[in-house]
Structure formats: structure tokens, C-alpha cells
């Protein structure tokens, strides 16, 4: 598109988000208090805004080239199909796959369901064992629970304190009844990167399919399905600056992965996923992947600098804070930090100017603290004190400095209000107290 300068667009987008934050900062005592203030967005693992370039790419397919990509008989259909296939190629290129191996879905949840249930159901007469990890996303864990009700055996591997699996435990768990191993590439809460290539090698050697939920990994770390011996891989559009409502599943063709469909109908997507493809969404995902392929390296470097600035800034001013998950094997945009003696939901209320999430029980409807943090062996009281900070493409140094200020202020204020902090300052060992449970 002539005249469209991506760098200017990104800067404009950053400036826009900064202006929103700035208005929050400068207008706090201003008469303009009534207008809605947008917090600084630091929740990039929850979702990402569409890259403006992605939206530009999608627009023509809503009102001009709106044809059904499966309509074979006229140019409306052909144009839509061409766009979808171009997107498919971009998605494949990002992970080192062939375009014939990419199936569009409604998102990573559907891709995970399809991969795990699809393979399990196909194999159930010969192989009825599944291996996954305690820290997987709910859609993986719940799909496995559901399969258990159908009679499958599932092994939920524990993780070490750094959040990674023990490869020896994986090897020991595989039997000749194991149909599939599912291990997420990057964890959504703590950002740690599992040893995907090693897992792939182990599974290939034992003749077991290896599926990885790569929703938080695609476009952030290099992935190569052949080098890493991956058989199935889930992709999420809205985690990589693409639109919500679209994802993909990579399904290996050589050697062929055999899988049952979940959704039946007209036989689209090689029979694996019927339904008319949402052309604009497919185009959006394709564009997001194309951008990621070009910019992933530089973006990772930039985010690492910001992330280190954020963590070091907090550590310099707050004692007793802990990073959850491996400090090195993690994606650059994620920080999951426990602030001892201060409860997470209370803390989030004190940093309303920041959009973040917490592993505290109080923020979940079930009052259970984060199962991921529990799996790491983080003690319950520290799990209640955690914040997940996620940086991304449009985060700036200004955002980071703003966040540091607000978090330090809120934590300091809440520690002054905290009986646990008081006890710690007095040298009392909190663990030695017998608490009256309620």
C-alpha cells in the first residue's frame, strides 16, 4: 500500500497509547477527570492489540472482496481464496512448515482440542495413554480430563521449581500405549520456554506424536517444526497482534499425523475442520505472522531491554520480591513477580493506572490461587502476592518507568498496612506461627 509506512504507524500507535496514559498522569487533579482514562497496558500475555498493518490488510475483505473462499465459480470466491492461501503460506513460513500442513481454526483453544482429542480418538483402539504437563493452559488440561472420562489414561507431568519439565520423567512416562505428548512451548503465566527440541527428539524416537501449544511462543521465539520434530502445533491470532477469533493448527504430513475431526460439515481444511473460512480473519493472521517473521529478532531484543529495566527498577526499590519461573529460559516480554507480604488483588486495586493480572486467588472466581504457581512449588502465600506483567510491541520506556513508580508506591503503602510485613520487620518467622484457619 503506497504511502503506508509501518514504522510511522507503530510510533503513532505507541504515541496514542502514551497519550492515553499521559492524560491519566497529568489529569488526575484536573477538571477533565470525568473522561475515561485508559490504563497503561501491561497484559500482553492476556491479549494483544491488532497491529495497524494487520487491520489494513484485513479491511478489503469485509466489504469489497467479501466472497466465500470456497466459491469456485466466480472471482469473488477466487479473490478470497487467493488471500486465504497467501495467509496460509505466511503462517507456514513462520514455523518452517509446508502450507498444506496448516489448518485454520477459531483459535488456539480449538486447535488444542482438535489436536489432543482428534489424535486420541483416532488411536483409541491401539493407544489410550496421553502425557501432558501440570502447567498447561486450561483448554489442554480440560480436554485431557474429558478424555479421562472416556477411558483414556493421562499422565500430568510435574514441573521443577523453574517451571520446566524434567526430561527423564518424560522418558519414563512414555509407554507403547502413549498416543500423544502435549507440552506448551511457552507458559502464558510465567513465560518460561520448555525444551521443545529435546522433547521432540524423545517423542520421535519412541514413535509418539508430539503436540505443542505454541500460542505464546509463535512470533516470539524461533520455531521450526522439522528441526524440533514437532507433529502438531497450535497458533493463536490474538497473541501475536492479529485478530481475535482465529488461530491455526499445524498438522504434519510427512510422516502423516492421523487425526479425527471435531467439526464436521463440508469437508474444508482437508476434512479436519469444516466451515467457511473467515477470510478477513485468515488474512489478519497471515499478516501478523509475516510481520512477526521479519521483526521477531529486533522486537525480542527491544523487549528484553524493557523487561530488564522493569525488573531491575522494581528490585532496586523493593526488598523481598521474587521472580517466578526460570530467569533465563523465558520469553522477553513476560515478568511474573511475587511481592511478599502484599496480596495481589489488593495490589492491583492500588495500581488502577496499569492493566496487569495476578495469580492471586482473590482475582479468580474460584478463590483458588494460580495452579501454575502452585505447580512451581511457590508457597500459597507468595502465590497470592503475584503480578503478571506483560510487555509487547507497543510498550515504551515511559510505560515501564510509569509502572515502576506506581507499583513501588502501591507495594510500599500496602506493606505499611500489612501485619505480615510488620512481623517480618520484627524478625518474626511467619512460618512458625500457628494460624487459626477459617
Amino acid at each position, binding site marked *: 500500500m503506497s504511502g503506508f509506512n509501518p514504522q510511522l504507524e507503530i510510533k503513532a500507535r505507541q504515541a496514542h497509547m502514551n497519550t492515553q496514559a499521559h492524560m491519566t498522569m497529568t489529569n488526575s487533579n484536573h477538571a477533565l477527570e470525568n473522561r475515561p482514562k485508559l490504563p497503561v497496558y501491561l497484559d500482553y500475555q492476556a491479549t494483544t492489540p491488532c497491529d495497524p498493518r494487520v487491520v489494513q490488510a484485513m479491511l478489503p475483505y469485509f466489504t469489497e472482496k467479501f466472497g466465500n473462499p470456497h466459491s469456485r465459480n466466480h472471482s469473488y470466491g477466487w479473490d478470497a481464496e487467493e488471500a486465504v492461501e497467501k495467509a496460509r503460506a505466511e503462517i507456514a513460513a513462520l514455523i518452517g512448515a509446508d502450507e498444506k500442513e496448516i489448518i485454520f481454526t477459531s483459535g488456539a483453544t480449538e486447535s488444542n482440542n482438535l489436536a489432543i482429542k482428534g489424535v486420541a480418538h483416532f488411536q483409541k483402539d491401539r493407544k489410550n495413554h496421553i502425557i501432558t504437563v501440570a502447567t498447561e493452559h486450561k483448554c489442554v488440561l480440560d480436554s485431557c480430563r474429558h478424555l479421562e472420562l472416556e477411558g483414556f489414561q493421562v499422565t500430568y507431568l510435574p514441573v521443577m521449581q523453574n517451571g520446566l519439565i524434567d526430561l527423564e520423567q518424560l522418558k519414563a512416562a512414555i509407554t507403547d500405549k502413549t498416543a500423544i505428548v502435549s507440552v506448551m512451548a511457552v507458559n502464558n503465566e510465567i513465560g518460561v520456554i520448555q525444551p521443545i527440541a529435546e522433547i521432540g527428539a524423545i517423542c520421535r524416537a519412541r514413535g509418539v506424536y508430539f503436540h505443542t501449544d505454541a500460542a505464546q511462543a509463535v512470533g516470539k521465539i524461533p520455531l521450526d517444526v522439522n528441526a524440533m520434530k514437532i507433529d502438531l502445533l497450535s497458533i493463536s491470532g490474538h497473541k501475536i497482534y492479529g485478530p481475535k477469533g482465529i488461530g491455526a493448527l499445524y498438522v504434519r504430513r510427512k510422516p502423516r499425523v492421523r487425526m479425527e475431526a471435531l467439526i464436521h460439515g463440508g469437508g474444508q481444511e482437508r476434512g479436519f475442520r469444516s466451515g467457511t473460512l473467515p477470510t478477513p480473519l485468515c488474512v489478519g493472521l497471515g499478516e501478523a505472522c509475516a510481520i512477526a517473521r521479519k521483526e521477531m529478532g529486533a522486537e525480542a531484543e527491544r523487549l528484553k531491554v524493557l523487561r530488564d529495566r522493569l525488573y531491575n527498577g522494581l528490585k532496586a526499590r523493593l526488598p523481598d520480591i521474587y521472580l517466578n519461573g526460570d530467569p533465563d529460559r523465558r520469553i522477553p516480554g513476560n515478568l511474573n513477580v511475587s511481592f511478599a507480604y502484599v*496480596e495481589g488483588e489488593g495490589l492491583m*486495586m492500588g495500581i488502577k493506572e496499569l492493566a496487569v493480572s495476578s495469580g492471586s486467588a*482473590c482475582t479468580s472466581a474460584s478463590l483458588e490461587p494460580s495452579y501454575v504457581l502452585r505447580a512451581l512449588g511457590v508457597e500459597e502465600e507468595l502465590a497470592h502476592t503475584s503480578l503478571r506483567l506483560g510487555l509487547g510491541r507497543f510498550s515504551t520506556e515511559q510505560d515501564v518507568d510509569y509502572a515502576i513508580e506506581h507499583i513501588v508506591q502501591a507495594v510500599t503503602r500496602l506493606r*505499611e*498496612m500489612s501485619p505480615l510485613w*510488620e512481623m517480618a520487620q520484627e524478625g518474626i518467622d511467619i512460618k512458625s506461627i500457628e494460624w487459626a484457619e*477459617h
Partner: protein
Amino acid sequence: MAYSEKLLEHYDNPRNVGAFEKGEGNVGTGLVGAPACGDVMKLQIKVGADGRIADAKFKTFGCGSAIASSSLATEWVKGKTLEEAEQIKNTEIAQHLSLPPVKIHCSVLAEDAIKAAIKDFREKQEGREKQSGKDKAAE
């Protein structure tokens, strides 16, 4: 979580945060909850010679609802006798703050904290009376 204005007010401007001096007399301290549950409240009452609660202080490790509930509790106990303070119900706290259903347990903990502080005060009082009784007997 969408909180009521009253709750947010207590969170932004909590009443009576702090602690009495360690050796201060006529103080009862209630410590309830557990860090593992994400809720710990410490509520202290200072009882005057007239048997009424002259001052109260609190510290809380917990969510916005917990902080507001305990802040409100310190407000409400002031000026009451021990028996009157014991009558404060968690339902009243929850209603005043419009606590969402999933947060009602925070108000229960606040009620427990009040009762625990009163119990502690009474036990210390009994201890003082026994001690002065012994002292008198020893003379």
C-alpha cells in the same frame, strides 16, 4: 471486580491503620486468617477506664474487600463497650460495603478479628487481676 464507592473509599483512605506500642496497657489484639488463604487481619482495641473501646487499629494482608472490612470494623468498634462490639455482625459489614457474594468471607473474618481482639483483652485483664490478687496475697 466492580466495588462499591464505600469500599473503594475505605481502600483509598483506610481508617486507623497501624499498631499500638508493644507495652501499651489495656490493649487487646486479634490475629485471624492465614497467609496461605490470602487473608490475614490484625485488629487491636484499646479499652478505656469506662469499659468502652477508646481506640482501634488494624493491619491487613488481603484483597480490597478484606482491607475495607477491617477498616470499617475499627471504625465501628470505637466508642462501644466490649459487649456492644461483640454484637457487630459480618452481615452488617457486608451490607454496608455492598460486598459481592464471593467476598462475604472477608466480612466474616473481620467479625472474627473483633471477637479475637476482645477475647485477648479479656484474657489479659483476667491475667492482670490474678497477678494483682497474688501480689496482694504476697504482701
